[in-house]
């Protein structure tokens, strides 16, 4: 099995989520991110008009694959065919790094394509650890799991920080710390995001995400990835950095994706703050 995120060990390295909306402009611009993150489910079968550009980018840049369909906390048995296809895809494009979400999106073999909140129990920790082990064995790679955003806690026997730390410590997966998710959750569920971060084991972080969210109402923020990163989230990132974290950081944008020049403007801002 490959080592954990060795190539991503460059301190404060910044990446960008690759999106079809701007991918064809990457080479027309002098300024490029240090690395890209891709959603493998969107590229395992790729649109013919994007193939050449995708293959050029994947061969020129360091890539992290960030999946959506694994459903690590689901009762649905792991989809071996999907995982085998995923491994072939990662191998074909020599992508060493794969991350997913600490959530579920399937149940009883039904796909929701949305990241749903897990009951936070000891049993769930054990169950996820078993599945992480199986996934890592099939993929031949260590994986990282992202702390998810959630709008409802279906059931909890433990604090979220304990749940995350236990899963990461016992499964052998690394943590993909999504700073925006911490912020959005802290707002929606009325907790102190800094106190939350203080309880996270920073040493197990593989890399981090930052993204924009929508302020729907005073009580509800939604993790849309549809606008620029808010100042409060940049501030929270500063707090993480002050805590000694120098792991790679990725800017995500999934909705209302602007042109490449605008993306790079925000990317430059991220670099300025996180260096």
């Amino acid at each position, binding site marked *: 099995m490959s080592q954990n995120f060795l190539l991503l060990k460059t301190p404060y390295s910044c990446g960008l989520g690759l999106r079809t909306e701007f991918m064809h402009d990457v080479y027309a611009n002098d300024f490029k991110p240090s690395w890209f993150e891709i959603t493998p489910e969107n590229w395992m079968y790729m649109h013919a*008009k994007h193939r050449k550009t995708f293959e050029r980018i994947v061969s020129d840049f360091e890539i992290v694959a960030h999946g959506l369909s694994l459903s690590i906390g689901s009762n649905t048995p792991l989809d071996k065919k999907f995982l085998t296809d995923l491994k072939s895809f990662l191998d074909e494009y020599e992508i060493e790094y794969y991350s997913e979400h600490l959530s579920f999106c399937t149940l009883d073999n039904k796909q929701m394509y949305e990241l749903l909140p897990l009951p936070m129990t000891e*049993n769930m920790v054990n169950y996820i650890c078993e599945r992480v082990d199986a996934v890592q064995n099939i993929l031949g790679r260590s994986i990282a799991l992202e702390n998810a955003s959630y709008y*409802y806690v279906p059931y909890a026997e433990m604090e979220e920080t304990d749940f995350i730390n236990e899963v990461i410590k016992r499964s052998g997966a690394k943590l993909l710390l999504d700073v925006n998710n911490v912020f959005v959750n802290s707002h929606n569920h009325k907790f102190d995001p800094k106190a939350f971060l203080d309880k996270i084991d920073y040493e197990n972080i593989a890399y981090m995400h930052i993204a924009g969210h929508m302020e729907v109402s005073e009580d509800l923020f939604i993790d849309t990835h549809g606008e620029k990163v808010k100042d409060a989230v940049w501030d929270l990132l500063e707090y993480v950095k002050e805590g000694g974290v120098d792991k790679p950081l990725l800017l995500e944008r999934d909705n209302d994706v602007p042109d490449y020049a605008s993306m790079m403007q925000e990317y430059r801002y991220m670099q300025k703050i996180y260096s």
Partner: protein
Amino acid sequence: MKLEQSIQKRFINTITKQEEVSMPSEAIEVYTELVYYRFLEVFEKAYPRFKKMVSEETFDRLIYEFLKVGAKTPILWRVSGEFKAFLIEKNDLDMPYLADLLEFEFLEIEMFMQKYSDHTKSSFSLQKSYAFSKEANIRHFSYPVHHPDFDSNPEAFESGEFTILFYYNAKSEEVLYEEITPFIEEFLLSLTPNLSTMQSIEKIAEVYEIENEELLEILLPILEHFHGENILTL
């Protein structure tokens, strides 16, 4: 894990409107909308013509009914194929052309998502052996869903037998289609590496008792066009 699974199941049933459980309504609404919009986004991109031909209420209803059955594939674009199968099986819309329309729309997606070879250009020759490319597709429809005016008044079109050839044009990055005759289809599918194109023409001419020259005159421009579009491969 029984407790956890029952909690997860109740949660999913609630957000997909299959069960009414006392949960904070705002949070549930957020998830209901997130899930619904995920499917809506995919289906309206996959079936823009179908969506325009039914009311928004009907489209919404069909999505929620599909959610009850459940999607299986982990690959999001493929769920449109599952939705197509669900709608055809369900068959509760007064649209006899439904299966053809959905197949027509979904095939374009399937063809966009397949891998195409890099074709090196060579001139067409009757002496060479060609085969019908695996990258092109032929479909049979009972309604002329390929007709540009079909959507505005589908009832005005009579059913029949329509053979449509689909292919990917790398230059325009589009999936193109054209109606072909059953004879052209038979000829395309009869092409084999064992025979030169001319030999294949002679063979089918004999079956249909047509003069070779007469058939060649009809087929040559068609075959040159097919060769130019990589519908014929060496």
